[in-house]
C-alpha cells in the first residue's frame, strides 16, 4: 500500500510539473497550449540523443534539453501564437493542435516510431526502509516538483518580472499602460513553461523508459486534467491536482483494474468539478452584468 502511494506521488509529481507549465501559460495567455505535451517529448529526445549519441554526462544532457525546449517554447510562441493574440480562443486552440501535430510528426520523421529505451538519468541507488523500497528517481521527482513550485510561487509574488506576469494575466491593457512589456512577459512565460516541460520529460522517461514520438500526449492530457482539477491558473493548485491524480491513477491500477485506471481518474475529475466547478483551489469569479 505504502509503496503504491510512493509510486503515485512520484508519478503525480511529474504530472504536477507539466501542469505547472499549463497553468502558467493558461493564466497569462488564456489559452490551452495543447502542444505542451509534445514539448515534453522533445525534451526527452534531446536528453536522449545528447547523452547516448554525443556521450555527454547526464547533467549536461539535461541542461541542454532544458535550453532547447526553452528556445522551442519561445520560438513556437513567436511564430504561431503571437499573430493570433487578438483572435478567438478557439482559433488559438486549433493552432496549438496544429503545432502539436507538427512536433509529433517531425519527431516521427527524425527519430522514427521505434521506441528508444531511455536511460535512468536520476539513478543514485535505492533507499530501503524494511520492505519498502524507494527509488532515487521518485525522491528526486518529488523534490524537484516541490522546489519548482516554491520557486515559481516566490518568483511570481516577489520579483518584479513575476509581478509583471501577474499583472498581465489580470489585465493586459492596464498592464501595458503601466509600462509592462506584455509581449516579452508572455514570451518569458512560455520559456519557463517549456523549460519545465523538458525537466518533466527527463523525469518521466527516467521512470517510464519508453520514448516514442507520442510519449508526451497522454501525460500532457492528464496534466491538463490535473491543472483543471486543482483550479487552472493556480500554482499550488496545479501541484495538488497533479499529485492527487497520480495517486488515484496508481491506486486504481493496483487495486481495481489496469485498463480502467484512466477512466477512474477522469470520473473522479468529473465528480470534483460537479461539486466544485472551479477546481480544488480555483478562484471563484463572480460575474458582473
Amino acid at each position, binding site marked *: 500500500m505504502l509503496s503504491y502511494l510512493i509510486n503515485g506521488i512520484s508519478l503525480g509529481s511529474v504530472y504536477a510539473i507539466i501542469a505547472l507549465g499549463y497553468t502558467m501559460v493558461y493564466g497569462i495567455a488564456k489559452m490551452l497550449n495543447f502542444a505542451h505535451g509534445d514539448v515534453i517529448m522533445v525534451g526527452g529526445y534531446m536528453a536522449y540523443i545528447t547523452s547516448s549519441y554525443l556521450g555527454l554526462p547526464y547533467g549536461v544532457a539535461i541542461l541542454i534539453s532544458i535550453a532547447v525546449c526553452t528556445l522551442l517554447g519561445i520560438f513556437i510562441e513567436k511564430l504561431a501564437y503571437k499573430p493570433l493574440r487578438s483572435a478567438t480562443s478557439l*482559433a488559438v486552440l486549433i493552432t496549438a493542435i496544429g503545432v502539436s501535430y507538427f512536433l509529433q510528426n517531425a519527431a516521427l520523421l527524425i527519430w522514427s516510431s521505434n521506441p528508444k529505451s531511455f536511460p535512468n538519468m536520476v539513478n543514485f541507488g535505492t533507499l530501503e526502509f524494511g520492505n519498502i523500497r524507494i527509488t532515487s528517481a521518485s525522491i528526486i521527482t518529488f523534490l524537484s516538483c516541490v522546489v519548482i513550485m516554491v520557486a515559481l510561487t516566490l518568483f511570481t509574488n516577489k520579483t518584479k518580472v513575476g509581478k509583471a506576469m501577474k499583472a498581465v494575466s489580470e489585465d493586459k491593457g492596464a498592464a501595458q499602460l503601466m509600462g509592462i512589456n506584455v509581449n516579452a512577459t508572455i514570451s518569458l512565460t512560455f520559456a519557463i513553461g517549456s523549460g519545465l516541460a523538458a525537466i518533466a520529460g527527463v523525469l518521466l522517461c527516467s521512470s517510464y523508459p519508453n520514448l516514442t514520438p507520442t510519449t508526451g500526449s497522454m501525460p500532457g492530457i492528464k496534466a491538463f486534467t490535473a491543472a483543471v482539477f486543482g483550479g487552472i491558473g493556480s500554482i499550488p493548485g496545479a501541484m495538488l491536482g497533479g499529485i492527487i491524480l497520480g495517486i488515484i491513477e496508481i491506486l486504481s491500477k493496483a487495486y481495481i483494474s489496469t485498463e480502467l485506471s484512466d477512466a477512474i481518474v477522469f470520473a473522479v475529475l468529473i465528480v470534483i468539478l460537479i461539486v466544485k466547478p472551479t477546481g480544488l483551489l480555483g478562484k471563484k469569479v463572480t460575474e458582473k452584468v
Partner: protein
Amino acid sequence: MKKMKKHTKNSFLNYGIIILFFIIFQTLVSTKHISNSLQGQLIPICVYIVMALSLNLVVGISGELSLGHAGFMSVGAFSGVIVSTALKHSVENGALRLLIAVIVGAIIASVAGVIIGIPVLRLRGDYLAIVTLAFGEIIKNFLNVLYVGVDANGIHFSLKDEASLGLDMATGTTIVNGPMGAVGITKISSFFSAILLVLVTLFIIQNMVYSRTGRAIKAIRDNRIAAEACGLNVTKYKLVAFVVSAALAGSAGALYALNYSTVVPKKFDFNTSILILVFVVLGGIGNLTGSIIAAALLTVLPELLRAFSDYRMLVYAIVLILVMLITNNEKARIFTTELKYRLKFKKKQIGNKEVSE
C-alpha cells in the same frame, strides 16, 4: 415571386451542395472514374460531415467547447453494431437493419448526452471542455473492457473476457471483443444512405437553428445573463442543443461502424474529437456550409497529400497552422471584407442599371 429569406436560401444551398456532391460522385463511381482509395472515403466523408455539423451545433450555435464528440460517435457505433449483428437473422433486409441500427445508435448516444449534459450545465468554458474530454476517454476505456456476444438465448455482456460471456458454442457469435473492438460486422452502409443521413442532419439542424429553440440557444450564447433575465430556461436549451448533437453523432457513428468489418474503440479517441473540432473551426464557427466543405476537404486531404508520402502529416500540420494564421490575420481580413464589399457594390450597380434601362 415572394423573396426568399436569406437563411432559407442558405439552407437550400446546403441541400444543393450535398445533392450535387452525391450526383457527381455517384456518376464517377458508376463510370469507374474514381480511384479505389477515394471511393472508400465517400462514406467516411459523409460521416465526418454529419459529425462536423452536429459539433457545430454545440460549438457554434450553443457556444460551448466540446472535446469529446468522438465519444458519442463511439457510443453510437458500438450500439449500432450490436443491434445490427443481433438482428441479423430476424431482420433480413440490410437497409431496414441499417435504419434500426442508426436509430438505436442515436437513442443510446442521446442518453449518454443527457448523462454528460447535466454536469456540463454547471460548468463553463474550459472546465466544460475538460469534462467532455474526460467523458470521451472514459467511454474509450470502458469499451476497451467490454465484451458482448449473442446466441440463441439472447445477448450476453461481460467486463472480464470473451470466455466469461458463456456463449452457446453452436449459435454464439462474439460482437464486441474488448480492445479488439467490434468484429465480424456485416457491411450494410451505402453511399446513398450516408447522403440521406447528411440531408436529415442538415434538415434537423437548420430547422432547429431558425426556430424559437434555436434563437433561444443563440441568445444564451451571446449573453447568458440577459437571456436568463428574459425568462429563458438556460439549462433546458443548452441541454437540448447538447443532446441533439450527441444523437446525431451517435447515428453517424453507427453508419460509420457498419461500413467496416471491424471497428476498434481506439478509433474514437481524443484525436478524432480534435479532428472534428478542426473541421468546425476551419469551416467557420456557426457556419454550416463551411463545416460541410471543411469536413469533406480535410478528410480527403491526407489522401491527396500521398505524393508527399512520409511527410504528409507534417504537411497537414503546416497547412493547418498556416490556414489559422492567414484567416485570423488582420490584413487578410480587411482584404476579404473589402473584396466582398466591392463585389456587392458591383452587383448593386449592375442591378441599378437594369432598373434604369
